[in-house]
């Protein structure tokens, strides 16, 4: 089932007055796609999911499932979640505490008044898929977080929904379980082929799961694209800093001409701009810009003798496989990723900046 959102706006009236939660959002989600809504808390991603589910009404705009209009403010159409046949998995799992696991999974089928024998078959099949067959007689209170999550997912898939919606389903799990469940959700979605919309604030989760990701900020879409394209070609500073860990360095830089060559000034030091980036730099109207550089594109004490900056190591943080080194270049804070050796705090180092990998952003920070 394709999901198409057109010019969706959602406003809330609160004590502070009108708050625009979503501002003119348009997204097309393909059949069977795993689509991730990513953004910081309060960016409107959960509201967007609620709108798709039919739990909230849009202030303006249209939502279509394939050719069927499920919400349209102009034509005053609004279908309930039941009529849309969506399934929803909540962060808190939202299992019914008074029912055992079997009845929890069977609940949507019971409401739909499906035959008993058929319910039993469907529940057992869903339970087998999620490997919770031995838990069917247990009440939710006796389950661990991971088991609850499985029950919630089983309840969602049991009635073969058109669209599968997940609202930060892994946020309440511990780190190890989260990674295991992440892989499992991905496999399940591959197997079932149901169009899935997944909300998260965790960019690692989004990158690992999504066929495509929409990055939201303050009710607006910053960028929609595959995980690779978001990483390689961020459309703006927000996406650049939000995707990737440690985040991209964002530095105010200015351009000068020295010895007939265009140079970037970082602190009190200057670097010649490599030929690949000259055209982009020349396209800038002003002589300063915002330079984005991923930490892995900075090398400390390289063996060769290309152009260098000198920097002081401010602090060092081990990430296990790699080490994040926080550098001070004439007062500019820059993060680099490198190997562990020889990274003493306070030490003076030579730093190679791979300017051919830099991102150039216009405007203000």
């Amino acid at each position, binding site marked *: 089932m394709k999901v198409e959102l057109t010019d969706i706006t959602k406003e809330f009236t609160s004590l502070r007055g009108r708050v625009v939660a979503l501002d003119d959002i348009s997204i097309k989600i393909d059949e069977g796609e795993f689509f991730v809504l990513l953004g910081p808390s309060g960016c409107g991603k959960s509201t967007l999911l609620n709108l798709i589910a039919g*739990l909230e009404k849009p202030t303006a705009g249209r939502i279509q499932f394939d050719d069927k209009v499920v919400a349209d403010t102009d034509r005053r159409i609004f279908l309930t979640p039941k009529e849309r046949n*969506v399934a*929803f998995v909540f962060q808190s799992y939202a299992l019914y505490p*008074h029912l055992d696991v079997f009845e929890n999974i069977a*609940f*949507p089928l019971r409401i739909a008044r499906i035959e008993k024998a058929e319910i039993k078959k469907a529940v057992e099949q869903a339970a087998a898929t999620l490997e919770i067959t031995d838990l069917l007689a247990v009440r939710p209170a006796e389950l661990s977080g991971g088991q609850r999550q499985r029950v919630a997912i089983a309840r969602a898939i049991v009635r073969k929904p058109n669209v599968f919606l997940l609202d930060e389903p892994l946020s309440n799990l511990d780190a190890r379980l989260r990674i295991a469940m992440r892989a499992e959700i991905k496999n399940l979605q591959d197997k079932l082929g149901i169009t899935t919309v997944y909300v998260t604030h965790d960019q690692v989760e989004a990158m690992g799961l999504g066929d495509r990701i929409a990055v939201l900020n303050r009710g607006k879409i910053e960028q929609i694209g595959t995980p690779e394209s978001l990483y390689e070609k961020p459309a703006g500073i927000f996406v650049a800093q939000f995707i990737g860990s440690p985040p991209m360095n964002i530095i105010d830089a200015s351009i000068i001409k020295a010895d007939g060559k265009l140079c970037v000034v970082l602190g009190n030091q200057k670097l010649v701009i490599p030929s690949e980036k000259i055209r982009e730099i020349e396209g800038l109207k002003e002589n300063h810009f915002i330079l984005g550089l991923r930490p892995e594109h900075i090398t400390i004490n390289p063996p060769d003798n290309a152009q260098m900056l000198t920097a002081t190591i401010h602090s060092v943080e081990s990430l296990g496989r790699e080490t994040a080194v926080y550098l001070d270049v004439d007062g500019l804070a820059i993060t680099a990723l490198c190997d562990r050796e020889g990274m003493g705090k306070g030490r003076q180092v030579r730093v190679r900046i791979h300017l051919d990998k830099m991102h150039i952003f216009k405007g203000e920070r």
Partner: protein
Amino acid sequence: MSENTVRNWLVLAGIVFCLAFCLFPFIYMLVISLSTRADFLSQRASFKFTLDNFNAVLTDGSLHFPDYLRNSFLISLASAFFCVVIASLAAYAITRLQFPGRMSLLFFALAVSMFPQIGLVGYLFKFMTRLGWINTYQALVLPYTAWILPLSLWILVSYFSQIPRELDKAALVDGCTYRQILCKVILPVAAPGVLSVFLLSFIFAFNEFMFALMLTTDYRARTVPVGIALFQGLHGQTPWGNIMAASVVTTLPIVILTLVFQRHIMAGLTRGAVKG
């Protein structure tokens, strides 16, 4: 004696004193109901055990005590039932729907419940006379329901507001209508609260005196508290034995209810105070 034993003895003495202080009227009631003479204490008459009082209260048709008991049970059950139904619908609306003045509605209900009963009784009497309801069950069920409703509402609102909203959303996605959400999710999840509201309403209605005194005239609708108060002997003397036996019979079901469900009742009463 060590300091610990002294402390234990003091605590024990305190407990015994408090218990005796609280329970003395009940013990007195029980003893007199089982005694041949009500004044055995003052006249140094010896205590003689008898079940005559109970026998008279339960079987003597002219005392009408079984009638009172039946009236009380039916009226209290009906009041408690209506209270739970109305209060749960109202609490669901107040906690789940966005409409202006939800909080003022709650506080208005609280204010209404502070009205002194005596201030209402004159009006109620006129009202019920007009309706021709004096000395009927509905004459009591109606004001009882209204009188207990604010408390029931407050308890249920505090219960319902603790049920996470996501449960409603999940039920909605699973295909429930709003009525189904209330019946299949909210009420079962809040079952302890609903039960405690039912019991509290029942006990309140069962103990009520003033309305019952004014709005009933004889055994056809008179409730136990009024019935006992109006017990009269043949020559105008007060039949203490019968009164005490009737009181014991009346107190028993309440005591049993409270003992069995005390945990629920306590949770229901303190819920709003601690949380929400």
